[in-house]
């Protein structure tokens, strides 16, 4: 991987967009199913460029998300770093998977992420008593193939390295 970095701002830009999408106000009934944009984008970039985006970058991104959402400082950071680490371990296999199989892995990862968040929220007394909090992971799974295609074409068009 001796290639010099090229067009790295694209990565930052997509993360910024993801942060904005996750802070966008939505009607209450849609809010329960809001896809985890930041986690999805992170999964894509770690799988595509594991030497550029990894747990450290995920940690910083998670801190931003924590501040943005006013959650327990560090909980998004920790969960995203774990996701990034797992994907970094698996990225060769992950790239070979067909898109639907990737989506299944995304379901598991984002499900774990939501569980971790839910634990932290229960600690601070604002947990949910239904399993409905897992809904975003299902929606994220459905969105993954489209997001994957879009981000891949962006990466190829701009030759992000």
């Amino acid at each position, binding site marked *: 991987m001796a290639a010099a970095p090229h067009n790295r701002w694209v990565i930052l830009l997509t993360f910024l967009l993801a942060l904005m999408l996750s*802070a966008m106000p939505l009607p209450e009934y849609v809010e329960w199913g809001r896809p985890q944009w930041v986690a999805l984008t992170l999964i894509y970039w770690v799988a595509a460029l594991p030497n550029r985006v990894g747990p450290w970058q995920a940690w910083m991104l998670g801190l*931003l998300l924590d501040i943005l959402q006013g959650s327990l400082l560090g909980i998004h950071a920790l969960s995203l770093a774990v996701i990034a680490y797992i994907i970094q371990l698996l990225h060769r296999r992950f790239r070979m998977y067909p898109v639907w199989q990737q989506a299944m892995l995304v379901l598991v990862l984002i499900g774990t992420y939501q569980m971790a968040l839910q634990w932290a929220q229960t600690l*601070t007394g*604002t947990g949910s008593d239904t399993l409905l909090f897992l809904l975003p992971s299902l929606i994220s799974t459905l969105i993954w193939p489209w997001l994957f295609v879009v981000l891949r074409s962006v990466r190829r068009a701009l030759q992000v390295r």
Partner: protein
Amino acid sequence: MAHYRGYLTLLVTPVQWLVDVPTRVWMTVNSKITDRDALQQENGRLRSDILLMSRQLQRMDDLTTENARLRLLLNGSRRLDERVQLAELIGVNADPFIHQIVINKGLRDGAYLGQPVLDENGIMGQLVEVGPYTSRVLLITDNQHALPVQVDRSGFRALLLGNGSKQSLRLDHVPDTADIQVGDLLLSSGLGGRFPAGYPVAEVSEIVHDPGRPFALVRAVPRARLDKSRHLLLVTRQEPPLLDGPIADPVAAPPTASAPASSGSSASGGQP
């Protein structure tokens, strides 16, 4: 810690600002293309509102003086006029379990931790995180929020708890014999030292007397339009707050042990 955390929000203030751009553009466009008829109608409505309110204000002047005089007679504590500042909503917490909003006032505008936030109908919540330019409001419907209130009609005091639903609040530890009815207005009692006394908070919507439970189940609907108001009021208290502890202390409310004596308390502290 909460103080330093406020400065961290500087990092995400641009994001919040960007997210708010479409709404602001829409509002600008909307105000530019409103037609003349609608404006005139609104103008007429506002004029009649002003008339009604100035009439109330005239009575209010009289009552305020009388109140001050009576308090002087009773050697009671003074109740000063609060200073009010207008703030605007710029963000809503994306997590459905956390009822928080972000407003465009911060340390630069004199906002402080624990400052009460109102809209035109009643109390909305308090500041839990104050950054240089923005701050975060914990709404009264959040699971973590509690607010000492008093029934306007009878003077009965209780704690109003948020329970994570946007349209309902719960009154804590209300005995079955308490003087409270559906439709009663709940005012802030000011006992926690954080919220000013006498502002409307909620209206009692449902009372269930279940023989199997030690207390009555009382639900209330918030008066403030928590999910609709875009313009909010920040109230600055002139007197120093009674309690200067961490944020979770609005719970420092009236002892519920005094609740069974509700008829007595209404005789001594309630409205005639």
